[in-house]
C-alpha cells in the first residue's frame, strides 16, 4: 500500500474511533438529561419519597447528600492545608518527602469500597457509633484529602523562593512567613481541590452505603450519630427495582439532580483553574 493511502486509512481509522467514543459519551449525556428532565418537577424536589422511592420526591435525599459533603469539606479542608504547608515548608529530608508522597498516592488509589469497609469495622462496629452521617462525612473527608492536598501543595510550590527570603530578611518568624506569604496561596489552591473533591464525594455510593445511610424511614437527623438518606444510595435502591417503570423514572430524575450538583462543583473548579492560569500569564 502506498504511503499516501496508508495515511488516509490511518486518519479514517482515527476518526472512526473518535466518533465511537465521543458518540458514546454524547449518548450518556443525552440519555441522562432527556430521561431526567421528563421525570423532574418542582414537586419532585421538595416532597418526601414513598413506596420505597418509586413514588414521591427526593427532598430528604438532597438534604442528606448536602449534609454529608458539607461535613466532609469541613473536616478535610483544614487537615489538607496543614499537610500541604508542612510538606512544602517544613520537611527537609527526602525520606519524609517520599513517605508523604506515598501516603497521598495511596489514599488516592484506595478503592472507594475499601473506605466503606474500613468505616464499617472501625467506626460502626469497634467505636460503636452505629450507622451515622457524621461517620460518612469523616470517611468522605479521608477520601478527598489527597485531591485537596495536591492542589494546595502545587499552588504553594509555585511561590518563588525569593518571596520567602524577602520575608525572612524583614525579620519575620517562620510562622509569620507561613501566615502571610504561604497561607493565602494554600487556601486559594486548596479551594479548587476542595471543589474537585466534593464533585467526587457527592456521587460516591460504595463508601457510605453501609455506614451512613438508610434507604427509607429517616428524615433530618437530630444528632451526629443518626443515618440520613442520600442521592446515590437512593439511585442504587431504585436501580434494583428497575423492572418497575415508576421506580426507574424516579431513578432518572434523581440521577439528573445528582449530576447537576456534581457539575456545579466541577465547573466552578474548572473556572477557577482557568482564571488562575490567566493570572499567571
Amino acid at each position, binding site marked *: 500500500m502506498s*504511503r499516501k493511502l*496508508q*495515511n488516509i486509512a*490511518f*486518519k479514517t481509522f*482515527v476518526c472512526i*474511533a*473518535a466518533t465511537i*467514543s*465521543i458518540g*458514546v459519551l454524547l449518548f450518556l*449525556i443525552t440519555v441522562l438529561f432527556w430521561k431526567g428532565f421528563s421525570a423532574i418537577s418542582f414537586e419532585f424536589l421538595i416532597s418526601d419519597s414513598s413506596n420505597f422511592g418509586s413514588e414521591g420526591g427526593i427532598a430528604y435525599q438532597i438534604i442528606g447528600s448536602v449534609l454529608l459533603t458539607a461535613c466532609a469539606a469541613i473536616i478535610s479542608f483544614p*487537615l489538607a492545608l*496543614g*499537610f500541604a*504547608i*508542612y*510538606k512544602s515548608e*517544613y520537611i527537609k529530608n527526602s525520606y519524609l518527602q517520599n513517605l*508523604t*508522597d*506515598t*501516603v497521598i498516592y*495511596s*489514599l*488516592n*488509589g*484506595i*478503592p*472507594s*469500597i*475499601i*473506605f466503606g*469497609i*474500613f468505616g464499617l*469495622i*472501625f467506626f460502626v462496629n*469497634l467505636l460503636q457509633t452505629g450507622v451515622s452521617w457524621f461517620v460518612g462525612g469523616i470517611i468522605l473527608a479521608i477520601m478527598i*484529602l*489527597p*485531591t485537596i*492536598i*495536591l492542589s494546595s501543595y*502545587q499552588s504553594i510550590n509555585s511561590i518563588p523562593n525569593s518571596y520567602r527570603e524577602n520575608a525572612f530578611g524583614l525579620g519575620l518568624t517562620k*510562622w*509569620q512567613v507561613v501566615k502571610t506569604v504561604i497561607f493565602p496561596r494554600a487556601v486559594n489552591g486548596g479551594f479548587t481541590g476542595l471543589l474537585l473533591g466534593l464533585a*467526587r464525594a457527592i*456521587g460516591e*455510593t*460504595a463508601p457510605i452505603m*453501609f455506614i451512613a445511610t438508610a434507604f427509607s424511614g429517616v428524615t433530618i437527623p437530630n444528632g451526629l450519630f443518626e443515618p440520613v438518606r442520600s442521592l446515590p444510595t437512593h*439511585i*442504587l435502591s431504585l*436501580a434494583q427495582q428497575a423492572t418497575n417503570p415508576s421506580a426507574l423514572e424516579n431513578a432518572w430524575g434523581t*440521577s439528573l439532580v*445528582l*449530576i447537576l450538583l*456534581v*457539575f456545579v462543583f*466541577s465547573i466552578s473548579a474548572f473556572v477557577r483553574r482557568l482564571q488562575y492560569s490567566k493570572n499567571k500569564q
Partner: protein
Amino acid sequence: MSASQNNIGKCYVLVSTYLSIAIVAIIFVVLFLSSYDAFANIGWDLFSLEWNPSKDKFGILSMIYGTVSVTFIALGISVPLGILTAIFISEIIPEKYRLYIKSAIELLAGIPSIIYGLIGIAFFSAWVSSFFELPTGRTILTAGILLSIMILPTIVTLIEDALHNIPKKYREASKGLGLYQFETITKTLLPIAKKDIAGAVLLALGRALGETMAVMLLIGSIDRIPEPFYNVLNPGQTMTSKLGREIGESAFGSLHFSTLNAIGFLLFLIVITVTIITQLYFKKERRL
C-alpha cells in the same frame, strides 16, 4: 506572643500531616487484623472455587477470576479507543475546538459510577441479552463494556495531555523530512509519549480494579467461573461486587465477615502496589 504563635502554627501543620499518615496506617492495620481470622483459619483454601458460608466453604478464586476478566475486557476496549481518540483531539482537529471537547470529556469523567450502573441496567444489559440471545444481560462482558466506558474519559484526557505536551518542533521536523502525518504520529509522537501512555493505563487499571457500584449492578453476582473460562457471556462476580453485595449481610466477627475483609485486604494490596508502581514510574511529575 510571636514565639508561641510560631509553636502553635508548627503544631497545627505537624498534627495534620501525622494524622493523615496515621489514617493510612490505621486503615492498613484494621483491614489486616479483621481479615486475620480468615487467613489463619482458611489459609490456602481461600484460593479454591466453592463459596458457601453456611458450609464454611470460603473460596474466592471465582471472584479473582471475575475481577481479572472484567478489568481485561475494560482495558482491552478503552486503551486502543482512548489512544485513537486522544490522537484525534490532539493532532487532527483544529486547536480552537480542542479545549471544548477536552473540557466536555473531563466533565464526563466526573459522572458518579452509580449513574453508569443505572444506564447499564436500563440499556446495556437489554442490548447484550438481545444481541447474543441470552436469558439475562447481566454478564461479565456487559460489566466489562460499561467499565471501559467509565474509564475512557480518564484515559483520553491523560494521553491527550501527553501528546499535546510534545513540543511543536518535533512535528515540524518530521514534516520537513517529508513524512506523512500518520508517520509523524506513529514514529515520532507515540514513542515520545510512550511513558505517559503507560502511566495513564496503570492509573486506569487501578480505577478499574476498584470500581464497585456499576459492576455490582451489572455482573449478575454468581460465584462461578464459566465453562469454558473465556466464555464471558455468563454472569460472574468480582471482588468488589462480592463486598458490595454481602458485607452488609454478614455478622461482625464471624468467619464470613472476616473472609470478606480478606478479599478487601487483597484488593487493597493489589491496588496499592499498582499505585506505587505508577508513582515510581512518574517520579511525581504527574497530577492526579
